[in-house]
């Protein structure tokens, strides 16, 4: 990178002090507007907006949606975060230095089938092993990425970042964990979205594991709807209200996720010789009490906690509308997307 382009990137990052983070979802779109004032990040506005459903990657004709933000959410820049069933995130390692990353077949390691057009990016992760380079890679179908990039009309906010939802939520969580959990004990996190969930393990403040499961809140909702033959509107009542005991169905549906979660705990214990100190859960958590019960079942008394991403920000009183109170955990993706831009650290695209 030449001096001029390095200066340009630095200048751009410095100049981005007002960013709106958008986390697209099937139920709704989470939007937060964050401003940087010195080293502090201030939450200016947050809201839930109508859903923006990305197209299927194999459709020939895309119906382009337009997202017009309320005035209070119109920052200068927009960081978009999106998780679909086709979005793929993997924590990988290659023997040797960072230059070896360019030599690997990304389609193969990311499990992308031939003929599919994907955008792939990666970021090198600090590691205590000198023999290999660890990197976090994300892949998103070209169709969906292109659709997301054109969501915002001309003017402000101007799109400046597009991330896989799991990565942006991970970014938000890492910011919360780093100062307090750099000790020997590990931290397990679950980042749930509509169609997928990410299981994350941090050890000594470093990301050591990321597993993506194709189970999300919508997967759970569909299963419950199918099992009990109820209307879509009633699903949240069943999951959160307890009008019908759906714990067995929920446990069955979440079983693969819970299995992965237990494997993550074992990974920390056996590979890192570390016990789990903390379990944090955030994202789209329909039937949250079931999630917390199932995730904490075999964790040796460590109780999963719902993580509120706004705790890492300065929040002025009256910024959060009443309708989103109690749902703060769902904003992890939006907060992480905005913070990634404000902190000015970009990964490499492939």
């Amino acid at each position: 990178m030449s001096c001029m382009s390095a200066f340009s990137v630095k200048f751009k990052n410095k100049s981005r002090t007002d960013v709106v983070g958008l986390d697209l979802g099937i139920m709704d779109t989470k939007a937060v507007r964050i401003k940087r004032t010195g080293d502090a990040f201030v939450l200016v506005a947050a809201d839930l907006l109508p859903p923006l459903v990305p197209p299927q990657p194999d459709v020939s004709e895309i119906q382009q949606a337009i997202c017009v933000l309320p005035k209070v959410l119109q920052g200068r820049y927009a960081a978009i975060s999106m998780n679909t069933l086709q979005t793929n995130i993997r924590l990988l390692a290659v023997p040797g230095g960072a230059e070896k990353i360019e030599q690997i077949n990304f389609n193969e390691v990311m499990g992308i089938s031939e003929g599919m057009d994907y955008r792939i990016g990666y970021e090198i992760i600090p590691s205590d092993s000198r023999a290999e380079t660890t990197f976090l890679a994300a892949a998103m179908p070209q169709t969906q990425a292109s659709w997301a990039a054109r969501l915002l009309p001309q003017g402000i906010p101007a799109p400046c970042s597009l991330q896989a939802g799991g990565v942006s939520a991970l970014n938000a969580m890492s910011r919360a964990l780093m100062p307090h959990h750099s000790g020997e004990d590990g931290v397990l996190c679950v980042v749930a979205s509509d169609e997928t969930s990410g299981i994350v393990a941090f050890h000594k403040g470093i990301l050591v594991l990321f597993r993506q499961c194709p189970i999300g809140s919508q997967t759970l909702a569909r299963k419950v709807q199918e099992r009990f033959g109820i209307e879509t509107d009633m699903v949240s009542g069943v999951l959160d209200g307890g009008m019908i005991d759906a714990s067995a169905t929920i446990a069955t549906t979440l079983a693969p996720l819970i299995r992965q979660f237990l494997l993550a705990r074992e990974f920390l214990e056996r590979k890192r010789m570390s016990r789990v100190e903390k379990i944090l859960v955030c994202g789209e958590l329909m039937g949250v009490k079931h999630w917390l019960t199932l995730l904490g079942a075999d964790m040796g008394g460590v109780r999963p906690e719902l993580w509120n991403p706004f705790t890492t920000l300065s929040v002025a009183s009256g910024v959060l509308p009443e309708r989103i109170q109690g749902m703060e955990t769902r904003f992890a993706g939006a907060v992480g997307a905005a913070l990634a831009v404000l902190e000015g650290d970009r990964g490499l695209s492939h």
Partner: protein
Amino acid sequence: MAYHIDLLLDDERRSPSTIQIYMVLRVIVITSVAALILLSFLLFLKWHDLFVQVSSMEQRWQMLSPQEDELQRVRADLSGVRNSTRQLHDFSQTRVLFGQDLAWLQRGVPTEIQLTSLRITQSVNNPTGTAHAARSYELRLSGQVNSEDAEKDVNGLLSYMNETASTGRIESVVIPPGSFRSAPAHSSTRADREFEVLCRYRARSFE
């Protein structure tokens, strides 16, 4: 560290500025072209105006040209007349009225002296240090005297003339060296003498 894997393509990024750079360039180009066209039009109008003025002037000149020739001729004539007038005036300034001087001379010549010749000469020269020419006169008298006091009589005439010279019109009155002498021997006595008197007038400038 921040986890940020940006999947946005460079051509999908936009500037948040409401003033787009290409719009600014477009406005600059359009404004420049418009200004150029306007300037060209104004220059054409100016050129046309000057062209019309030149044509009009040429027509007027053709009408006035004979009058101008006549004017030049009259001016040349006037200049010639003025020159002649000035020369005449200058000459009149340098003139000496010899009638008065001869009457004055008649009154001062003693009875013992007989004037034999009177010659007036003039010369025009350019005195050193002056820009204008000057006219000089010389009055040369020749005469005879027959008396025992011939020298005294001649000196008396000289004194009379010098008194007048002091008034300023005459510069000097002298007897040239060797010009007071005895008359030729074949027809005269010992008392007969001949003399000459040279009277120089002050130079008169043509200024």
